[in-house]
């Protein structure tokens, strides 16, 4: 009777365990094994080459490191510019203000759209084919024709354009989490600070920021993890790696796998990239813990 009951209980988790094991855990573990092989993904023979793939990534693959630098640059802009805008907007909404719900509803529209849609819609606004470029037209009409520029086809500005469109898509998400965090700060604190004669700046520096540190850390970690792995936006906006100028790690892995058929090497890239991401979020978590304890 006991055994039958336990088996019955296993039945409840069985579908979840089977699907998760086959389509999530096995590929996850398999990546580690494949990363030590030289394999084109088709031939039955794989060549075991120990850590050669990883060695190649570190010392012989400048295109990989360029992709890492590019992703780092986009992430830096997302961390600073995008999150600063998100925080300011959240501060602006965290008060007795009309239309708060309206603002919140609108700001979260870009985050629910797909990266492909956002990339392609913005391409139409800032590309230079056929004189489409609305931004350039606006610059001309406000009397700044010297600033007219081919934003996407100039290697110098393409990556920054990608980063800004990415920020456009992402700020509403940070805004939402920051606002939720701000609303947990008791309003009595504000009253008390005012009675004590604290200025708005003091209140911001001594009360809001320290209380918001945990939320800021979570947003920062998720921004890093999300932005480093973003790539579909670039496909929609630019169309591809643009000779490396807009390449990012996931686009590299896809190219190595699909164009060069080097499956083992693509897995090794995936692992080293994943390890870096885990390390970053771990360091950030530790730092914030120390800050909170201090």
């Amino acid at each position, binding site marked *: 009777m006991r055994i039958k009951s*336990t088996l019955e*209980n*296993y039945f*409840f*988790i069985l*579908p979840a365990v089977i*699907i*998760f094991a*086959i*389509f*999530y855990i*096995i*590929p*996850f573990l*398999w*990546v580690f094994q*494949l990363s030590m092989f030289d394999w084109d*993904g088709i031939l039955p023979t794989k060549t075991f080459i120990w850590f050669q793939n990883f060695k190649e990534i570190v010392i012989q693959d400048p295109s990989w490191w360029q992709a890492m630098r590019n992703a780092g640059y986009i992430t830096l802009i997302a961390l600073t510019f995008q999150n600063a805008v998100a925080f300011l*907007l959240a501060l*602006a909404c965290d*008060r007795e*203000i009309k*239309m708060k719900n309206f603002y919140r*509803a*609108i*700001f*979260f*529209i*870009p985050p*629910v*759209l*797909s*990266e*492909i*849609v956002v990339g*392609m*819609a913005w391409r*139409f*606004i800032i590309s230079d*084919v056929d*004189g*489409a470029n*609305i931004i350039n*037209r606006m610059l001309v009409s406000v009397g700044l024709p010297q600033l007219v520029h081919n934003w996407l086809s100039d290697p110098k500005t393409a990556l920054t354009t990608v980063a800004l469109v990415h920020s*456009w898509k992402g700020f509403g998400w940070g805004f939402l*989490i920051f606002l939720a965090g701000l609303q947990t700060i008791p309003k009595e604190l504000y009253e008390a600070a005012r009675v004590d004669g604290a200025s708005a700046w003091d209140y911001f520096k001594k009360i809001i920021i320290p209380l918001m540190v945990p939320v800021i850390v*979570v*947003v920062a970690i*998720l921004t890093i993890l999300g932005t480093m*792995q973003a790539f*579909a936006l670039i496909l*929609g906006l630019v169309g591809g790696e643009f000779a490396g100028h807009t390449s990012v790690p996931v686009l590299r892995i*896809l190219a190595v796998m*699909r164009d060069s058929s080097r499956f083992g090497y*693509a897995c090794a890239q*995936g*692992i080293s990239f*994943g390890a870096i*991401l*885990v390390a970053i979020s771990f360091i950030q978590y530790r730092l914030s813990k120390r800050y909170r304890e201090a």
Partner: protein
Amino acid sequence: MKSSIYYQTKKVAINFLVHLFLLSMVLLCLYPLLWMVASSFKTQATIFSDISLIPRQFHFENYYLAVSKSDFGRYFLNSVFYTISVVFGIVVISSMAAYAFSRLKFPGRNIIFTVFIAAMMIPIPGSFVALFILLNKLHLRNTPLGYILCMISVGLSMSIFLLKTFFDKMPRELEDAARIDGCSKLGIWRHVALPFAKPALAVVIVFNALNVWNEYVLALIIFDSKNLMPLQRALMMFRGEFLTNYPLLMAGLTITALPIIIVYLFMQKYIVKGVASQTVFG
């Protein structure tokens, strides 16, 4: 002492500036989308001369062309089919598992649950490479079933976590009453637990639906046949084919984006909750 009029004026001025800031961001959010919709009603000839947001003439033929000549109706139905299948699968499978993790006893319960949660927190951006080979071996690549099963596995962890925390709050008396009435475990899951978890199920449904509708990378490595592709994948193909036929492209984009925006506007509350629960893992 400064007069109260001074403070009143200051307050009005600050409010004005705050609204100005917020409204300019609203404009920045909406302009590209309104521009996208407006352009989908223009022609290749007028799209660059008529830059107003309300076209002088509405050309619906772009939508007609997108659906009839470029098969967008087909891609749309594919996306709808994948989204409904995956969400249905996730709801059934994850709610059963979450109920067991919360209420039923069996050896290894905590370990298995931890594996589900931990796997989600370790990013391996290259696992789609192995998934590609695995699906080939199982003859599931380039099949709807392969895509649906993969997408279910992607959504499971979060949904199980969300539902388990909800079931943990369910009063024991509810179950006990059903058990006395002779309900089986499956019956309790179906008639007591599921109705109780409606708010959490709504979050799971809406959040996963958005996820599947917007998914790209698995659709890229799984599908070769055009007639199986979902919208996101079709858009990128479309982009290559009609790179300069902007009105047609914008019609395709609008077809893809509008359902999401409408669902979002009606289901806002649940999406906001989903985002909040996402941050728990940070």
